[in-house]
């Protein structure tokens, strides 16, 4: 079969599709048809043209859609439900047979780039939240808590590698705030994963503490 590569100008439309926003030159494979006496586009040529157009329009490519789905371990049916478009639409997008509209692509891209929470979309679709998302939230709180403890001038912290108990006390945060944060700490948090935390809150009016002085402590066992 006679084939050749030829330069082809892909016309990328503007937002409302009324004019050409950009012209992009690509090389595409063609095959010769003896009977028609003409060059025909191969499937690869169509894919190159459409992918180029999609990329320049800011649309996610089929491979990226698949990657997004696999990130969450979902089926194509679930993705269809998540974006409320139906299984067939998602399958067609992922196979490259069809392309998502610019509007729905905005939402998909937002999720792809972690600009929107998966749990938000799940909630809007009437689906249960993901537990790993909840874990990510806990992770954030744990990070915040550590930063708060370390940067707090009134806190006395004892962090040591291999030490399983972290002592800290502060007067600038209420115990309830700390306990709430601690209860949300994920075991995925590397520093705290195998630690027991003791939180102490100084009595009102006491601005300094003596070394080793402990009062009103509560223990939180993260492995529990």
């Amino acid at each position, binding site marked *: 079969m006679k084939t050749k590569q*030829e330069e*082809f100008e*892909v*016309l990328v*439309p503007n937002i409302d*599709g*009324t004019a050409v926003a950009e012209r992009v030159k690509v090389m595409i494979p*063609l095959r010769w*048809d003896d*009977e*028609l006496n*003409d*060059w*025909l*586009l*191969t*499937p*690869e*040529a*169509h*894919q190159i*043209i*459409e992918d180029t*157009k999609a990329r320049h329009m800011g649309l996610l490519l089929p491979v990226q859609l698949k990657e997004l789905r696999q990130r969450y371990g979902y089926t194509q049916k679930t993705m269809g439900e998540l974006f409320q478009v139906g299984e067939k639409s998602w399958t067609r997008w992922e196979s490259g*047979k*069809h*392309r998502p509209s610019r509007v729905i692509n905005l939402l998909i891209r937002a999720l792809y780039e972690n600009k929107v929470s998966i749990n938000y979309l799940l909630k809007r679709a009437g689906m249960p939240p993901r537990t790993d998302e909840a874990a990510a939230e806990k992770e954030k709180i744990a990070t915040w808590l550590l930063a708060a403890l370390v940067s707090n001038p009134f806190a006395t912290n004892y962090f040591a590698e291999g030490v399983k108990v972290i002592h800290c006390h502060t007067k600038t945060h209420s115990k309830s705030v700390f306990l709430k944060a601690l209860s949300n700490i994920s075991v995925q948090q590397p520093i705290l994963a195998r630690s027991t935390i003791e939180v102490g809150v100084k009595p009102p009016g006491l601005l300094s503490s003596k070394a080793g002085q402990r009062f009103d402590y509560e223990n939180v066992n993260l492995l529990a």
Partner: protein
Amino acid sequence: MAQQVIPEPWRKDVCAILATEATGTLIEWKIDAEKRYQATPDALWNYEVYQPFIDFLSSPAPTGVTSRWIRPQEKPMSFISLSRGSGYMGKFCYAPTGNELSFFQHTHP
């Protein structure tokens, strides 16, 4: 050439192929057709033209004209012209003897 009602068996077969949306395999595009399609306002993806043609061919007694643009050794060929909103025209060559042979060309009227 005079318009004539497109034969039903031909329409049925072509619709079945168009429904596959198998661009580049069952539905072949000439490079000239691709260039003209891209230059058409509102035209974006190739598959978007298939359904309007299916709708047209599924309508009662759609008409078209026979084409002289045929492959030499194949007999039953057809050429249809139809419009879709902005005035698309489709040329199809289809030989019932071959199950993969559908040729589509898109041009401005």
